[in-house]
């Protein structure tokens, strides 16, 4: 496998993306913000579509669309409320507006229809060395920002009132996190396609949550799970080309999720959740 340059690139880029997406996804799952994460992932597709239709580089569309969506939909819930229905409604609307714009771009430029499938479902093939370097740099930036703000961010996630009382800039932390998530989604979507980004965000953390109960350990487990999903997924699609990468990767994730769910149902696991 290693002797094919395109596959080498796919494995390197896939590993970087797996690590970065699983860390950001781990925060996303803790914050119960899957809808927001999924919306950011979805808007990257029309972003690229509109950019292509206007003759701009697609990268501009990926980053522009996710950052814009993060700006509109990423506001934190109203003060003192644990549930804000308008946050949901706004998120759904942002997603729909982006897709409507993408649809108009598609029908305006007929040639673009051919690229719809690759924008949505991605192709790990044809990843250049430059792509790998850019993904690596964006990933390193995202991970450093996340590492710097991890502790206060997690405190703000679990107990916003205490965090605020302790003088933490809760609104700023939340905004910074959504901004980094948007960056990561845009860079990941370029190689995995818009639809697979979300799987890499949500699956590793959801699986890790079922395997270990300690908070920081679960972040490390999520990274491991993400790497396993991507490597096994790429290998499956390489040896059985009839299986699209999106299917292989999400199926490996699903098998691990089901296994982890059974594992979490053991009496011992239940007891440890209660006592911890």
């Amino acid at each position: 496998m290693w002797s094919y340059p395109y596959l080498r690139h796919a494995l390197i880029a896939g590993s970087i993306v797996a690590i970065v997406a699983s860390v950001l996804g781990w925060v996303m799952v803790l914050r119960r913000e899957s809808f927001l994460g999924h919306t950011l992932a979805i808007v990257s597709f029309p972003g690229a579509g509109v950019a292509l239709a206007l003759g701009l580089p697609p990268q501009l569309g990926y980053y522009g669309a996710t950052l814009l969506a993060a700006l509109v939909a990423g506001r934190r819930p109203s003060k003192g409320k644990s549930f804000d229905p308008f946050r949901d409604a706004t998120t759904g609307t942002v997603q729909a507006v982006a897709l409507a714009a993408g649809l108009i771009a598609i029908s305006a430029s007929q040639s673009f229809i051919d690229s719809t499938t690759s924008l949505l479902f991605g192709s790990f093939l044809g990843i250049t060395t430059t792509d790998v370097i850019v993904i690596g740099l964006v990933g390193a930036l995202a991970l450093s920002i996340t590492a710097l703000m991890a502790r206060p961010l997690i405190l703000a996630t679990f107990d916003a009132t205490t965090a605020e009382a302790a003088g933490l800039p809760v609104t700023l932390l939340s905004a910074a996190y959504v901004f980094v998530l948007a960056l990561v989604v845009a860079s990941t979507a370029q190689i995995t396609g818009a639809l697979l980004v979300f799987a890499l965000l949500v699956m590793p953390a959801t699986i890790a949550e079922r395997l270990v109960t300690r908070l920081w350990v679960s972040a490390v487990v999520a990274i491991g799970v993400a790497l396993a999903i991507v490597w096994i997924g790429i290998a499956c699609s390489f040896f059985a080309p009839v299986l699209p990468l999106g299917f292989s990767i999400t199926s490996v994730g699903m098998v691990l999720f089901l296994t982890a769910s059974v594992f979490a149902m053991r009496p011992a696991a239940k007891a440890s959740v209660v006592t911890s």
Partner: protein
Amino acid sequence: MTTFLSLFSSEFFLMALLAGSLVGIVCGLVGTVLVLRGELFSADALSHVAFTGALAAFLLGFSTGVGLVVSCVVCSIGLELLSKRTTSADSVIGTTFAWILGVGTLMLSLSATQGNGASGATSTAVLFGSLFTISTSTVAFTVTGGVLVTVAMVILGRPLIFSSIDRPVAIAKGVRVEVLAYGFASLVGLAAALAVQSVGALLFVGLLAAPAGAALKLTRSPFAAMAASVAISVTCVVFGSLIAGLSPSVPPSAAITLLAACIYGAVALATRAKGHQHGH
């Protein structure tokens, strides 16, 4: 050049208005309750299930409508079941539909190898809808299903809103919240199946979210909001179809969605300005 009057005498447009209005009513009713319950994400999930369901029906030789109804209703009830058994419902729902979508990509590539390009047309129609090329049988299906969901929502509306806003009190008053939740889940699934054929899977969430968001900003009463949401979404369907009918470069589902988003945006800005005036 299509004129305003000729649109109203053309059959395709009247069919589109009929089916679209029913979808608008259904989405307005269901959307308000989904937003109030904080369950919009499960509708987002269903729109992806629809993609896989339609392609599965195509591969197995069933009609798209059958595939959509079965996959959406079964998955909607399944998601309700899943979210009951876990504390982190959204990540479990997300994991599940990410995989279902992955299965969809497999079906897309399997059906693409069958040749004739019909699967590509199916997938585009499911993703983005086909309001102006809707068949008579689909219109009949949409009207029947739409009336069914509307009647059910009118009957279940009061206990449903009650149990969404104040669950403990609803339980104490003898409302069977669990049965109600499954009933509502199947209505959401049916709504998804109906809407996907006209506005498309990717824009379905917008027609649930934007009119409901605008309506809930306009009034505090959930029942008034349901009525307002229906009015807004039907207005969007009618005027969106008109815009798309007069300018063929704009697809109807895009016009409808953008219109709904504009209304939500305008209402949100207006109520915010009003809130500042009153010193909130």
